[in-house]
Each structure stands twice: as structure tokens, then as C-alpha cells.
């Protein structure tokens, strides 16, 4: 979706706030949210983070967005009710579950890299060296195609292999595996003559995002 999260190339979004020794977590609750999300294994939160209204999204910190998207996910899946979240206590009539992530499972999750690449022999539509253009599409649900790539021409640098198209996650239960390509765009192509003639941008793009240029 063309949401506020798709911010590559925007102006006016404040300060970077760079600190050389900035930690990953600033407050104790942030790591708790992070850990709760890992402990529930409900899938990536990005589609729900992107549904946060733009003004709220910009006001919130990173882990506030996680919290908000996580609660949305829990409620929409029927795992908890809004009333339970507000009270901070379970409905007395609710059946008690058994945790999926035990300490043993948690350690496995931590030290096992998920297999996201699909072992499928699909014929790639593009080859390394092909000139491709970002399609002019505006999906209203989750996509990994930033706006700034649409209509821009680049070159296939590498075939990453086959991965499920994330755009389908909220639309269909059926996975849509397809090739992902590393695309090389010149800075000139993306940002015009004012950009440095030497510079480049690389981004992974699913086959559905691309057309022959």
C-alpha cells in the first residue's frame, strides 16, 4: 500500500538523531514487546504495522508500532479479546492454552536460521543482465515494492532464488512462490541528474514487480 511507511525519497521527516553508541533498546518494555512477539510466532507484523494510520505511525516509536500491530493481530486472530487487553486479565471463561514456545523451542528459534527460500524449480522470467522496469502498480495491501522503484529501469544483477510473494499474505492463503532478483538502479535513474553519476541503489524485487524494459 502507498502508506506512510513507504518513505524512501521523502523530505521533511525530521532528524536522524544519530548517536554512535545508541543501543538497540532504550527502555525495558521495548525488549519485552520484542520478546512477546517472538514468543507467539504469529508471523511478521509488517502488514499490520503498515495499517497504522499515518499520523499515529509517525508519532509512535518503533516498538510502539510493534505493540500496536501485535495487539491488532492477537485480536483479529481471536487469540485475545479487546476487553481482555484493556483489563490485562483473561476472561474467566476462557480455556487456558499451552504455550507453543517453551524455553527449548525459544533456544531453537534463536539459533536456527529460518528457511525462507523455496526449493522449487520455477523457470525465471528474467536473466542476469536483463533490463527491467518497476511496474506501475499500487497494491492496497502489503507489498515490498517501494514507490520510488515504479516506472524506473534497472538491470538484473543476481537471481536470488524462489521466495513466497509477501504481497499475497493478507489476500490469499495460497503461497505465490516466484523468483526474486537483485536489481541495480543508477542513482541518476531514480533521482535525476542532481544525483551523483557514480552512485547506485540495489534492491531485491519479486518477479511480479517487474516487466521487461
Amino acid at each position: 500500500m502507498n502508506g506512510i511507511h513507504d518513505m524512501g525519497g521523502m523530505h521533511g521527516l525530521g532528524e536522524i538523531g544519530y548517536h554512535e553508541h545508541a543501543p538497540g533498546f532504550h527502555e525495558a518494555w521495548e525488549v519485552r514487546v520484542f520478546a512477546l512477539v517472538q514468543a507467539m510466532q504469529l508471523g511478521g507484523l509488517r502488514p499490520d504495522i503498515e495499517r497504522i494510520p499515518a499520523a499515529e505511525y509517525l508519532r509512535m516509536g518503533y516498538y510502539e508500532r510493534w505493540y500496536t500491530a501485535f495487539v491488532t493481530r492477537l485480536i483479529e486472530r481471536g487469540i485475545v479479546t479487546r476487553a481482555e487487553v484493556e483489563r490485562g486479565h483473561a476472561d474467566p471463561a476462557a480455556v487456558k492454552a499451552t504455550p507453543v514456545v517453551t524455553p527449548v523451542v525459544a533456544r531453537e528459534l534463536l539459533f536456527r536460521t529460518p528457511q525462507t527460500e523455496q526449493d522449487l524449480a520455477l523457470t525465471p522470467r528474467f536473466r542476469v543482465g536483463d533490463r527491467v522496469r518497476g511496474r506501475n502498480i499500487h497494491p492496497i495491501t502489503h507489498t515490498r515494492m517501494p514507490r520510488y522503484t515504479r516506472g524506473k529501469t534497472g538491470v538484473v544483477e543476481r537471481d536470488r532464488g524462489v521466495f513466497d510473494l509477501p504481497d499475497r499474505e493478507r489476500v490469499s492463503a495460497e503461497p505465490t512462490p516466484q523468483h526474486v532478483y537483485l536489481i541495480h538502479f543508477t542513482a541518476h535513474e531514480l533521482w535525476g541528474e542532481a544525483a551523483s553519476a557514480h552512485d547506485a541503489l540495489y534492491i531485491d524485487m519479486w518477479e511480479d514487480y517487474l516487466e521487461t524494459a
Partner: protein
Amino acid sequence: MSQHHADHAPDQTEVPSEPALRVKALESLLVEKGLVDPAALDVLVETYEHRVGPRNGAQVVARAWVDPAYKQRLLADGTAAIAEFGFAGSQGEKLTVVENTPAVHNVIVCTLCSCYPWPVLGLPPTWYKSSAYRSRTVMDPRGVLRELGLALPDDVEVRVWDSNAASRYLVLPERPPGTESMSEADLALLVTRDAMIGVAKVAAPRVGGGA
């Protein structure tokens, strides 16, 4: 993050008016419902607070500096090469390591969220997640780098990696001059997180000085 939001959004319960209390309430709810095992939570918190962080990446970089065969494996398949150190886990899939040279400078950003190679760098710092870094780095990498203290000559090629799809990225910084006699372990101490994101270079050790 000193300000709280107690006077905002009273009608939107998912927005934490006081984040710490909201999160604590959610945690106790999930534990009470038998959905979350507190001991598992402790494992996750302890790991990401103390065990996974940029020291992992620094060991990988130092090894690549002293061992050409390792460097080759790292550039060919980052995920497999970091696994030699036992580094693995979520956000380590398809790890792509990009090498800085005198002619090429790489910098990592995630415009759509804040994708980051957790197994080697831990969780990202706030500035990496800021709207300004996410929005500006793709369009004006040289300006962002200058603002962060790294001015690059015009003839150096800047490569921006927008890491929001199948891969995560790690920058292999240049080994600074004057480190020829240093051990791998001492070299690892020089490597900073920000050099592995690509917003800094690894500084040469101070002459005559310890770390």
C-alpha cells in the same frame, strides 16, 4: 524517549498511553491465558539484551580481514559463513555481505520498515529506524553520510542497499592501515556497528595507545 503519551488517543486502546504499563498488562494477560511461557520469554529477553549484538559481526569482519578463504566464503554466502561462528537465527536468512574498497562504499537502509541482520548486529539503533534515515538515505546517501560524520570523495561509488525483501545485509568495512601486526581478536575490537551498517569507517588504532 522521555516523553509519554498519556493525553493522546484515549479511544484507541492499542496505542499505549503509558507503554511500560500497557506492555506489562499484555504480558501478564498472555501468560495468564497460557499463551506465553515466562521462562521462554526470559530466554528471548536475555539473548537479545546481552548475547546477540554487533560483537558478533565484529568477529566475522576480523576473521574476513585475516583469512582470505573465509572472506571468500563470507562474500559468497553470508548465512553459511556466519554459521561457522554459530551465529544464526531470525533475520539472518540470505545474508549478503558487501565489501567496502577504496573505490566503493556500501551503506544499508530499510525504507519500508527497519530490516536489519539481527544475528550479527543485534537489534537496530533508534537512528537507523528513524523516518529521516529511512527516507533520505536512498535519495541522498552522501548527504546523510556527511551528516553522520563521513565525507566521501566524489569519485568513490556509493552503493545503497535497500534491505526490505529476501536478503539482509552486512557491510564488510575496509581494514584500516597500521593494523598489519594485530591479532584477529584485537582487530575485532576495532570494528564498530556503524561501520558494518556503512555509515562510518573503521578507525585506525591510536598510535601507542591501547583500546
